[in-house]
């Protein structure tokens, strides 16, 4: 039990480190684009990925260590709420309420929509595979 817990924490550490690395690399790539594109892309893509993972896990067997590493670690570390909060404040100071509203709406509705679509896609995929007898 303790050993299993240790491996899960290690898996989350590695997943979190990789997710954060990708977030950092994307931030560097889009640094010259319109602010705050980096965090927006990461939060949308990460929501979609976690949606896919969640839909899959709900309907098929999946190793817990991999589940926590990819979900809590990678997707969790790849996306961020604290930077979203800081971006919003920065944007409000530099720009106007219209830009802030667009940023928050796209993050919010886009993230929820993509998580929803990701869950639906992987659920459909697993159920289809189950019918064919490929997955347990």
């Amino acid at each position, binding site marked *: 039990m303790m050993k299993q817990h240790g491996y899960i924490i290690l898996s989350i550490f590695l997943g979190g*480190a990789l997710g954060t690395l990708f977030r950092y690399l994307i931030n560097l790539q889009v640094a010259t684009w319109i602010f705050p594109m980096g965090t927006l892309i990461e939060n949308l893509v990460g*929501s979609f990925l976690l949606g896919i993972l969640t839909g899959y896990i709900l309907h098929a067997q999946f190793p817990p260590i991999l589940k926590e590493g990819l979900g809590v670690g990678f997707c969790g570390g790849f996306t961020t709420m604290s930077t979203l909060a*800081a971006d919003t404040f920065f944007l409000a100071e530099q720009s106007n309420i219209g830009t802030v509203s667009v940023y928050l709406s796209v993050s919010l509705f886009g993230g929820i929509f993509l998580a929803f679509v990701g869950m639906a896609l992987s659920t459909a995929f697993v159920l289809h595979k189950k019918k064919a007898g490929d997955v347990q």
Partner: protein
Amino acid sequence: MSHVYLVMIGGGLGAVGRYLLGVWIKKNTKQRLIPTAMLIVNILGSLGLGLFFQFMYAEIPYGAYEIKSYLFFGIGFFGAFTTFSTFSVETATLMQKKKWGPLFLYIFLSIAGSIFMFLLGFTLFQ
């Protein structure tokens, strides 16, 4: 230490911190209508980032990818301690279950709460 390692170690520690605090909250609080664990984590992390920015730089170090403390704590630790993907999936799940009241409450508390707490941390000791 190279920039990449600072980001990765900060991020790994942030993710583990989020997991441990999340598990602790789930163990020590009653089941609520809304998923409280990540809500509390996100609010705390946003407060932490606001305090950190104010104490360290007295401004938001936008695009400061050369400052090591920003890479480790700002992008790394606080960035990974808080999460947006879990928020999206939990909201989508509430939507699937057609729990509209908890859904709007959860969205409002997460987004407005995180922004407000960041602002509080950033301006408290200004």
